[in-house]
């Protein structure tokens, strides 16, 4: 949402950006305090893609409803991971974005959920498709694929999550044995498949590449891999100093991961961190591990 908001600012809209706490949580009371007489829209991400923190969407939805302000959430990370209920807990969400490839559906298709009577400007002007909201012949294969994928992803969600969480928690416990590392994001209020760590004294791109060479796919919020001087805005927003944010690593689990994969990562990752630290001019060994 950051870029659309920045675009709107160039068109004369005023945007209030709210801070998050050290876990990445938005405080609902701060949302309420930020509402102005002329507020027309509130948007809060359902769960963060980098650090996995799940935001208090039902609470914020309640506030939006009380003030009669349309409420949008980016739920791209959430489908097939945590249950949504648009009639109960998520009943005050008016608009919700989702993306098919995030739940094993085809790439290149997503959806914007609009609650009844939520009016939006046409997304594309021209043809009469989708009640004139989005011109252009529908991507039928994509739409059907998305529908099937969401069906599969949300069936047995609990059982599925139990398996992922079990592996995730073993991975978490094993990685926290590495000295001078910290878990980013909320310890409990987080996506079942997400882990994000900062390892002190080393740089994320190096870590990512060394893991890649050993067959482990990960991602990093390091500046040097993104080509900018600033590390990820998410890691900065939770108050990580740049040198710590530089050494961050995101690991996510999927359906195809197994307990053997966890064993393998727990063998390779400490070794790799150790190797990079051994060549880091900043490294001073300690044993403290911030949890």
């Amino acid at each position, binding site marked *: 949402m950051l870029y659309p908001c920045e675009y709107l600012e160039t068109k004369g809209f005023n945007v209030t950006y709210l801070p998050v706490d050290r876990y990445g949580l938005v405080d609902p009371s701060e949302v309420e305090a930020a509402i102005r007489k002329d507020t027309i829209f509130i948007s809060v991400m359902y769960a963060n893609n980098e650090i996995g923190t799940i935001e208090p969407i039902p609470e914020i939805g309640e506030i939006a409803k009380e003030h009669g302000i349309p409420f949008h959430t980016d739920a791209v990370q959430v489908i097939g991971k945590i249950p949504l209920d648009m009639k109960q807990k998520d009943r005050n969400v008016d608009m919700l974005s989702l993306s098919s490839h995030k739940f094993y559906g085809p790439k290149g298709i997503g959806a914007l959920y609009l609650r009844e009577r939520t009016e939006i400007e046409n997304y594309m002007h021209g043809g009469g498709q989708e009640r004139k909201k989005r011109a252009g012949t529908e991507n039928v294969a994509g739409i059907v694929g998305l529908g099937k994928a969401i069906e599969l992803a949300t069936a047995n969600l609990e059982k599925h999550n139990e398996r992922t969480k079990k592996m995730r928690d073993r991975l978490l416990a094993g990685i926290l044995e590495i000295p001078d590392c910290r878990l980013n994001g909320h310890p409990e209020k987080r996506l079942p498949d997400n882990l994000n760590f900062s390892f002190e004294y080393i740089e994320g791109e*190096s870590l990512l590449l060394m893991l890649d060479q050993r067959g482990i796919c990960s991602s990093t919020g390091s500046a040097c891999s993104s080509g900018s001087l600033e590390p990820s805005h998410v890691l900065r927003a939770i108050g990580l100093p740049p040198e710590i944010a530089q050494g961050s690593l995101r690991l996510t689990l999927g359906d195809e991961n197994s307990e053997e994969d966890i064993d393998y990562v727990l063998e390779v990752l400490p070794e790799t961190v150790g190797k990079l630290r051994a060549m*880091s001019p*900043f490294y001073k060994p300690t044993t403290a591990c911030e949890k």
Partner: protein
Amino acid sequence: MYNKKVMDHFMNPRNVGEIEDADGIGEAGNPHGDHMKIFLKIRDDRIEDVKFKTFGCAAAIASSSMATELIKGKTLKEAWELTNDAVAEALEGLPPGKLECSVVSREAIHSAINEYRKKQGLEPLPEQK
């Protein structure tokens, strides 16, 4: 993203470590956060041994490794004249935007040579441009 040569120097960097009784120690960093520390053992104006430690991305680590290989056995004058381009060329090229990460090597070498010169009672050499 990186070529084979860069990946080789990144995965198996040469000359990593410290020299306890180094004759010249230098350090340099850039705004990306890359940081290099270099240790020189100097005899008869020649770099007899060199070790480094680098915090940074693969380009920074590979450049550090290659730069130390290039100055080993060279005279201080030759080492001082080592350019970023020469390091990048020896690595058979760095991706766009990653050249900056190799600059720390040259700066760290200069800082070590000048630290050595200072200890010898010599004027530090001026940086060009």
